[in-house]
């Protein structure tokens, strides 16, 4: 943290942040204050998200323990760009421009981002105008130089993965530049959720990114519960935590093996694959769905944990505890594998601090942020989460963050099973703090990839009036571009897998 006085205190008017319960209050500000904030971003003041709605642009900010959302009204449809001063905002502003037509003045890169001209409509979230869906060509950044050539990869890949395009400019084997093009998996989820009843919107939220369905559903539920001032029964809170840790466990186990597999070391993949499968089966036994989709709903959880499910989880945890250390040993002691992962795809600490990058990408490069500890939402308020932090920022460090988090999740699951109170699992939603027809809430939840931000505005009738979500990958994808530079083309899959950024979650 820098020595300068906290910035957000001026807005909130509080000298000391309220550390016991972090609420994302929203403050309207004027262009001068907006500019001042933009200038301060990246120096301990983190950009959490940026989104637009008709006639206004919002920015979620975090500084130390303080969290706010600032709103700049811009009825003219123009606002001063954040990206011109703070690079992490560039892609968010391009997305805002595609979805709402709000123009960021001074944005250094104003090419469309999510909109590939295939929707048949322009600016769907504000002044939706029909246009021909003819797929305009995308101008990639120009590259000049002797002996350079380009390799286009994707959006359809040889493996069964999500769609995304990578444009490599290489000199022989060395990567000179990687440019990503995303947006192929845009489903318009925010637009679908707008106007939907909360229960339906919750189902949609759980489908933003399938591998993080628990985290997204939880983020949405927490935001809605804050907006409506609802109390969630204790047991539901603990079950939510249990599901979140099972999801983290399954994904991390899958990732560790998949990274080794990209170095053609298939045996680790086979064994972690078996462990992952056991977690998924235990989740199915416990909660009736392998990925636990639609199990977290605003107000609680949809399915209680029976004794059988509890036993399945406990057995799985015990099994992983026995097997996992041997796999870690294999990973750490196979020289041919270590040769591939150590020093590959280095992310520098200054990048993760500038981009406020969460998850294993941030923690592998020295940024300790973990939403479970920072936001301390239930049940983590009464559990200890000690994020593992490494300094090297390479593929190996990202694997080690996952290994440590697997071990932590096992401990957390044990604690949760011990503590699990006996309560109802669902409570009716409250009617909000009686502030008016519409109330708002926001939440930051730690998915396996990093912090998921969700903001929602709820009508008095229990429908979503507006919403926004920001996947952790928004601040990880750009660092992948930076991390592969000066690596060789053949090492990109390894770097990419160690980032494991979301396509669907990012594209929305």
């Amino acid at each position: 943290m820098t020595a300068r006085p906290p910035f957000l205190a001026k807005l909130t008017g509080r000298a000391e942040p309220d550390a016991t319960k972090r609420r994302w209050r929203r403050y309207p500000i004027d262009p001068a204050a907006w500019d001042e904030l933009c200038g301060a971003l990246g120096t301990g003041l983190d950009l959490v998200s940026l989104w637009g709605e008709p006639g206004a642009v919002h920015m979620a900010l975090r500084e130390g323990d303080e969290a706010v959302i600032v709103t700049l009204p811009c009825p003219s449809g123009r606002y001063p760009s954040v990206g011109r001063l703070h690079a992490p905002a560039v892609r968010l502003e391009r997305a805002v421009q595609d979805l709402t037509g709000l123009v960021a003045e001074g944005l250094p890169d104003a090419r469309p981002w999510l909109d590939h001209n295939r929707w048949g409509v322009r600016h769907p979230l504000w002044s939706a105008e029909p246009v021909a869906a003819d797929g305009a060509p995308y101008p990639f950044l120009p590259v000049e130089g002797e002996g350079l050539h380009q390799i286009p990869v994707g959006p359809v890949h040889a493996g069964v993965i999500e769609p995304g395009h990578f444009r490599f400019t290489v000199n022989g084997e060395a990567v000179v530049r990687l440019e990503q093009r995303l947006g192929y998996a845009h489903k318009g989820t925010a637009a679908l959720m707008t106007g939907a009843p909360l229960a339906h919107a919750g189902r949609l939220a759980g489908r933003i990114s399938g591998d993080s369905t628990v985290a997204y559903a939880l983020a949405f539920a927490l935001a809605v519960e804050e907006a409506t001032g609802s109390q969630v029964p204790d047991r539901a809170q603990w079950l939510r935590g249990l599901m979140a840790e099972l999801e983290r466990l399954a994904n991390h186990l899958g990732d560790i093996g998949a990274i080794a597999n990209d170095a053609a070391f298939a045996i680790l993949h086979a064994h972690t694959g078996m462990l992952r499968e056991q977690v998924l089966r235990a989740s199915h036994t416990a909660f009736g769905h392998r990925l636990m989709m639609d199990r977290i709903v605003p107000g609680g959880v949809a399915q209680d944990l029976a004794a059988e499910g509890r036993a399945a989880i406990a057995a799985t945890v015990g099994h992983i505890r026995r097997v996992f250390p041997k796999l870690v040993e294999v990973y750490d002691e196979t020289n041919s594998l270590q040769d591939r992962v150590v020093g590959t795809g280095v992310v520098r600490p200054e990048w993760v601090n500038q981009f406020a990058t969460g998850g294993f990408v941030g923690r592998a490069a020295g940024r300790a942020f973990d939403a479970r500890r920072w936001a301390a939402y239930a049940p983590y308020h009464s559990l200890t989460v000690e994020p593992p932090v490494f300094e090297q920022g390479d593929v190996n460090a990202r694997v080690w963050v996952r290994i440590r988090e697997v071990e932590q999740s096992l401990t957390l699951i044990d604690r949760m099973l011990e503590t699990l109170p006996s309560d109802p699992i669902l409570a009716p939603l409250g009617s909000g703090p009686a502030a008016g027809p519409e109330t708002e809430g926001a939440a930051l939840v730690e998915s396996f990839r990093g912090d998921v931000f969700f903001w929602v505005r709820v009508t008095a009738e229990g429908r979503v009036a507006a919403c926004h979500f920001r996947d952790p990958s928004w601040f990880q994808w750009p660092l992948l571009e930076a991390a592969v530079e000066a690596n060789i083309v053949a090492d990109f899959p390894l770097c990419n897998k160690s980032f494991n950024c979301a396509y669907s979650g990012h594209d929305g």
Partner: protein
Amino acid sequence: MALISDYLVQGVQMLLVLALAPLVTGVVRKVKARLLRRRGASVWQPYRDLLRLIRKEAVIAENASWLFRAAPYLIFAATWVAASLAPTFASGLMFSWAADLIAIVALLGSARFFQTLAGLDIGTSFGGIGSSREVMIASLAEPALLMVAFTLSLLAHSTQLSSIIEVTQSPAVGLRISLAMVLVSLVLVALAENARIPVDNPATHLELTMVHEAMVLEYSGRHLAMIEFGAALKLLLYMSLIGGIFVPVGMARSGDPWPAYFVGMGAYVAKLGVGAVALGVFETAIAKMRVFRVPEFLGGALMLGFLAILLLFVSRGHL
């Protein structure tokens, strides 16, 4: 009569390598699958794959030239001839007097030449990247293979495989350090030439890491069948070379009575089985190396071959 039986034995060898090549690939895959605790496809699956590919329509890129169509047959033919020359179950075969170890190297080199040209022909970036990597690997693997050939020739005073095997079969050969070095060198070259881990990964889906697979990405149908068959033959060829030269146990000689040929065949199949299992185990235990480590890997093979020759000279006391 002798001529007819010579023809017969040579003919049997030509068919035998064709018949066994997919099986060896199938066994390697099966071993790897079992080691990964998977059930794995049947060892006969490569035959079914070839049949399926031959029956399927070949989709050819619009800008492909005649070379792209011709290359698979040239690759297959060159590899088949090379495999027919290799020592399998009997030495002193008819064709082996017509072509020597260096001819095998040259045949494989020609096959690779057409393969890399075909990779470049359709003009995709993956074909280009695969060809460029293949040539980088070949430029190191071929000299190493020639060093192996020279060492063996010096030992046998001939480049003929049959003469070499006669020497290694005779008790006079004893334990020779130069032979051991050549064996290691040949194994390293075989791994690189057959696109095996740690140089390449025959099972990968990652376009950016491919070498051999990147060159053949655009192939389909019967063309792909020819290339896959060629690749299986090449693997069999290297296993036969290693088995025939360094473990010439049970191999029949020209003029032996008939039962000796059957013993030779049994021994050959057993050697292939051992080779396939060993390859599967090795590939499971190691990760793929960085592309730029391959020169070090093959440089080691080249150096071993070179040292083997030097040692041979020095130990004989004349240079």
